[in-house]
């Protein structure tokens, strides 16, 4: 539904987006994940024609955005919830959008109800809105025209935990009804619970893509199992692991073993070793994300302890 092809955007000598290509499928939520300044927002801005591309193309439903006669009816966009006139009321902001798209005023009330903004809140001016309220209003604005495609930049920013769950359910439901969703975030846990597919971007380039499982499989441990284990009798445990032919390296009070937790547990059982700890030691998605984007991070990422180089997509 959204097709990005060899998209590049440069600012003087700086390349904000570097030859990025990806597709967002209908009925799926695509998460666009990367640290601040990785090029997520620029990519999204090019998609909707606010920023011209230096090279490459973006089509939405087979059309360039500017060729959509009434784009609000097909593509819902939320790039920056704060980008509204501080002196307008929430209701007025939606009314302007509804009128531009040619929608009845009743649609404004429907959307306000859907994002749980009360009448009193809707008649407040934007400058008195909290960030969470702005995000809800922005979501309402994006959904006004009942679009097939949603493009949302950091929509969960400023939402409280209940709001984040609400957003997640909303987007899942929207995709389940056949909608196409592209949402960006710099926070993994916002994305991993809702996205069917993730696109990791760092310093303007896509560094990995896929669903959670395939990302983990291609990640730090290359999908190999890893278990952290310790026992009352450390030497007995070492002996047991050695006899089973597992490769164990000391770590903390125990060992890191290149085997599944089940295999390690079975070895301990057979050798009657009392375990005090047994857990999956594979790198989580968070480690993976930090690792994949580590050379593109502003801060050196101390959490990325694995020195394996990332799987470049």
């Amino acid at each position, binding site marked *: *539904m959204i097709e990005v092809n060899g998209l590049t955007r440069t600012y003087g000598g700086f390349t904000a987006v570097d030859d990025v290509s990806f597709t967002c499928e209908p009925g799926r939520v695509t998460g666009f994940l990367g640290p601040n300044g990785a090029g997520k927002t620029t990519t999204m801005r090019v998609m909707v024609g606010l920023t011209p591309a230096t090279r490459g193309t973006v089509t939405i439903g087979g059309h360039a955005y500017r060729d959509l006669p*009434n784009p609000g009816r097909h593509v819902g966009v939320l790039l920056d919830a704060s980008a509204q006139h501080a002196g307008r009321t929430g209701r007025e902001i939606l009314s302007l959008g509804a*009128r531009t798209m040619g929608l009845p005023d009743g649609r404004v009330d429907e959307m306000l109800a859907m994002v749980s903004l009360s009448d009193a809140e809707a008649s407040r001016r934007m400058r008195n809105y909290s960030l969470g309220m702005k995000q809800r209003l922005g979501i309402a604005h994006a959904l006004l025209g009942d679009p097939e495609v949603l493009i949302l930049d950091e929509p969960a920013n400023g939402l409280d935990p209940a709001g984040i769950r609400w957003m997640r359910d909303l987007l899942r439901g929207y995709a389940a009804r056949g909608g196409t969703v592209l949402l960006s975030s710099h926070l993994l846990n916002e994305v991993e619970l809702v996205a069917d597919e993730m696109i990791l971007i760092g310093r303007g380039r896509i560094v990995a893509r896929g669903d959670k499982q395939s990302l983990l499989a291609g990640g730090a441990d290359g999908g190999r199992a890893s278990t952290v284990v310790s026992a009352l009798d450390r030497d007995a445990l070492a002996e047991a692991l050695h006899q089973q032919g597992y490769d164990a390296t000391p770590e903390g009070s125990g060992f890191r073993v290149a085997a599944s937790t089940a295999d390690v547990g079975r070895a301990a059982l057979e050798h009657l070793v009392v375990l005090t700890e047994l857990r999956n030691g594979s790198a989580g998605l968070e480690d993976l994300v930090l690792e994949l984007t580590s050379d593109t991070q502003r801060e050196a990422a101390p959490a990325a302890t694995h020195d394996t180089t990332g799987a470049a997509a």
Partner: protein
Amino acid sequence: MSTATTTPTSTAPRPRTIDISQDEPVPFGRLVAVETRKAFDTRAGRWLTISIVGLVLLVVGVGVFAFPEDAQDYVDMLGVSGGVLGYFLPILMIMLVTSEWTQRTGLATFTLEPRRPRVIGAKIAAGLGLGVVVLAIGAAIAAVGVALSPVNGGEAVWNLGVNEVQNFLLTSLIGVLVGFALAMLLRNSAAAIVAYFVYTFILPAVAGTLEALVDGFDKVAPWVEFNTAQTPLFTGDYHATGEEWAQIAVTGTIWLVIPFALGLWRLVKAEVK
């Protein structure tokens, strides 16, 4: 909530393209209506408009009681209210354009209508529409002023001719469009308003000073300074000669056509931030 992320949805093939064959472009009239609404739906916009009308009222009111009798005819009254409008209408227009950038509403405006020249056209139409309404109110207030002048011992003189109306509208239109051009070029409310006042106050003053100091500059000024060139339109017999029209055309190209074209080009190319 569970952490399951891959709840399979319907496997029926979904359309991968958007059918736009039935779509109507956003009608221009609707864009104009929305842009007009934007001039009033904030306190700043509403009060600016109300203040402008109030100021006209005040100035004409002062005129009725304080102007010398020979300046209480309709053309003079209209000139006074036109002067006030001429300074403040362009500010209204400037705000229509620059607020899309300074308030960042352009993000929504230009995603809902990505054909930016249409939005600009709608803003011009909305601004001119507002301008005409405010001018009409100004003319009505001036008429009341003239009708009231006998209160002060004067005589109501209705001396309005076609030339006066035409020139009054033309100079107002020029002022509004210059404001528009500056707004598109600078895309910042404060900078555009300052630039407009430099154009409308300081440039004619500089031209006047140079005319006084430099021999022969009075011949050059009407060819390079737009306000000076427009002077025949609202002084004397309100009639510009062929040469004076040529001066208006030349200075109009320098101060209006070129900045306007450049501003529009920049605005279409600009990133909307």
